């Protein structure tokens, strides 16, 4: 049988980096073909080639037996290749039907034929197994699962035969996820081909017919879903030769006294649910999760940037309420995952460092002196606190973001992705600053989606998946494989 789409020996390089190193891939009509791999394995590059976003690559693509080269996403769509991005492109203010027929509403003469549009939308949703959705209502009235449905229905009505889905379940509730997986199976039964990209391996093995594993821009294997399992997939994704920084021997610190930060049953809708944890002075707790699992949102909420809907945060036994100002006063420090949102690039280092402390530290001379002390502590290069932050390298900007909290050592330090995008040397420096802070008695919550970062510094590791803490490691050997496996999540049955 002829595959619907075939890639042979596809290569793509970005500057000096080879993102794809000769990929062979085929997908058949009526098949769900999953694509898995770590961040940076080449999934998204491959996806963009399939959808016509990247037109310049080496190698061949054949669609329905004809060799072709897609020049843009429009051309791909016209041929029947639709892509559904993680960030949905729907308009919540418009009706469900309008979203389905966006840009190609049925018309009578020059005006939209509303009655026909509604009728057809109803027919399509019925065929997809969602007869209860009212097509006249605003899409925004419905939960995210229906937004996804609208986008899939749009692809189907536009005549798509190959649908590429990028992490379609990352924002969905377990029940919505289950319904989406059913829908995907139904589409395959109707003869569509689906390329399904996901980190959630349980879902992948449940929905896919075949699974292709990518690693470092190469195809490692294509397996039949019923002949493999999550453990084998994780092994294939990570490769055999685990490097030294991909495993660690945990030695949880002896917990002295009372916890300094306690979260009890903390929830925030669409972010995390029923999270309880305790942090003790002097320990570094790694909080690992895939992007979208709610760990960044958790740190943000504890710092007071967003409200929780239920549960409690306590610092040194006292309930904490209010915004960042209050949190800072209670001894909580926070570094956001995105450097740009936390720093004033057009302002000198010392003004960046002193801002939370101006009530006791104001005046250029005093601020400069304090900034000089803490930037020396973090090893800022060049050591010039009068220079604008924007003039420093990324790693040194991050040091500024951390140095701010050394003016008065915090009780709790929430560090979200503190080493993102840094070279090995800079990473090491930042992690040793965290270690020194812990040694001085600060409780550090190291929040990251990079297992290596967590393994390099944590005394204890928590793993979050889909808004919940799903695993805790307090002693013994922990490997990257274990973390990725835990974060890849269980397929929750909605009981």
């Amino acid at each position, binding site marked *: 049988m002829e595959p619907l789409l075939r890639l042979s020996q596809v290569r793509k390089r970005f500057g000096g980096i080879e993102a794809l190193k000769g990929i062979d891939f085929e997908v058949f009509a009526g098949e769900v073909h999953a694509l898995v791999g770590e961040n940076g394995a080449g999934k998204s590059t491959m996806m963009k080639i399939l959808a016509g976003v990247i037109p310049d690559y080496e190698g061949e693509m054949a669609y329905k037996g004809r060799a072709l080269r897609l020049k843009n996403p429009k051309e791909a769509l016209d041929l029947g290749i639709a892509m559904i991005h993680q960030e949905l492109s729907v308009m919540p203010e418009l009706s469900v039907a309008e979203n389905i027929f966006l840009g190609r509403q049925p018309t009578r003469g020059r005006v939209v034929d509303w009655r026909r549009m509604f009728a057809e939308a109803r027919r399509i949703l019925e065929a997809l197994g969602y007869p209860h959705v009212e097509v006249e209502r605003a899409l925004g009235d419905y939960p995210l699962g229906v937004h996804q449905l609208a986008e899939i229905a749009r692809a189907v009505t536009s005549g798509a035969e190959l649908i590429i889905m990028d992490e379609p379940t990352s924002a969905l509730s377990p029940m919505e996820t289950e319904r989406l997986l059913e829908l995907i199976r139904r589409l395959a039964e109707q003869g569509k081909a689906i390329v399904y990209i996901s980190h959630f391996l349980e879902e992948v093995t449940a929905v896919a017919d075949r699974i292709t594993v990518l690693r470092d821009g190469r195809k490692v294997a294509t397996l039949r879903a019923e002949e493999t399992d999550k453990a084998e997939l994780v092994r294939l994704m990570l490769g055999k030769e685990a490097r030294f920084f991909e495993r660690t021997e945990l030695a949880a610190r002896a917990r002295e006294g009372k916890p300094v930060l306690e979260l009890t049953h903390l929830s925030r809708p669409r972010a995390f649910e029923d999270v309880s944890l305790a942090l003790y002075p002097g320990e570094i707790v790694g909080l690992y999760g895939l992007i979208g699992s709610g760990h960044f949102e958790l740190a943000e909420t504890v710092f007071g*940037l967003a409200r929780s809907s239920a549960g409690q945060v306590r610092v040194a036994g006292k309930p904490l309420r209010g915004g960042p100002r209050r949190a800072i006063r209670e001894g909580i420090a926070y570094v*956001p995952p995105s450097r740009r949102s936390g720093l004033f690039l*057009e302002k000198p280092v010392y003004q960046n460092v002193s*801002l939370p402390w101006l009530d006791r530290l104001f005046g250029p001379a005093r601020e400069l002196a304090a900034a000089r002390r803490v930037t020396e502590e973090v090893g800022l290069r060049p050591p010039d606190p009068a220079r604008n932050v924007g003039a420093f390298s990324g790693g040194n900007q991050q040091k500024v973001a951390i140095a701010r909290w050394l003016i008065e050592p915090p009780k709790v330090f929430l560090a979200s992705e503190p080493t993102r995008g840094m070279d090995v040397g800079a990473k090491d420096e930042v992690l040793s600053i965290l270690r020194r802070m812990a040694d001085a008695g600060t409780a550090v919550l190291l929040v990251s989606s990079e297992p290596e970062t967590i393994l390099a510094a944590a005394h204890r590791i928590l793993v979050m998946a889909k808004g919940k803490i799903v695993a805790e490691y307090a002693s013994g050997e922990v490997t990257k494989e274990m973390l990725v496996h835990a974060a890849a999540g269980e397929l929750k049955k909605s009981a």
Partner: protein
Amino acid sequence: MAEKRSRTSRLAERARELAPVWTLLALIVFFGVYSESFFTLENFGNILNQVALLAIMGTGITFVLLTAQIDLSVSYMATLAGVVAAYATAGHLPQPWPIVVALLVAAFLGWVSGAATAYLGIPSFMSTLAMSLIASGLSLYLTRGRILFDLPPLSKTLGSGRIFGVKWLVIVAALTLLVGHLVLRYTRFGRYVYMTGANPKAAELAGVNTRRIVAWVMVIAAFTAGLAGVVGIGRLGSATPTAFDGMLIDAIGAVVLGGTSLFGGVGGIPQTVVGLLILGVLRNGLDQVSVNIYAKTLITGIILFAALVFNILFAGKKES
């Protein structure tokens, strides 16, 4: 290599920052050459007198622009404060209470539009636009469209009196600018104003209550506008329901001409002083060289527009 590039780009930035100063110097030289009466002490006194009211208003606008907000109600607020002061004087409220009440009314209305922006998220251009109607409406309602001639004595003194040969009006303007400068440069509040404008998200992360800062700068803008109105009626000799309505564009224009960024975080009172002088010299000089008087507004408009384009290009450069 990188060091060298960053140095030349810093020089370029410096040149851009100083562009308003070059503009001012060029204008002075130009009018000095083409007009015989321009380069006289008396004429410089005239220029200062002409921009004094704008300076008082511009001080508050500088605060607002530094937080990346705008206040479109300042001129109407000035009119209202003048009307309230005259109305209360005519109603025999003992002095100096009419002036106090006028300033409090302005500050309160500023707080209302400020709170609407800071806490309800109504864009400041809209909340102050609506507030300008309220202020203008109150002025009309209180005066019933008439001109009020009973003015507080203090308004008359500050608006048209002199001390040691210097106009009180100019002194009040200078003091307002000075206080504004000291607050922005040497207080915590001033730093919060800059940081809130430079990156509101980052300011919040550092514990700055950015909403309160935004609400407060709009109170300040309304207060200085009110002060301009209270002094301004003394200069005009009467309070009318539309006395200062035409000052809006000039007041905001002067601040922008000076180089304070429309996107917040960059600029200050020294820049505003330069902007005021550019506007004053331009207006005055165009009179001196006897340009067709019907072209004056057009020329001022073109220069303001050019300054805006420059302001945006400058900010765009910083982004990249």
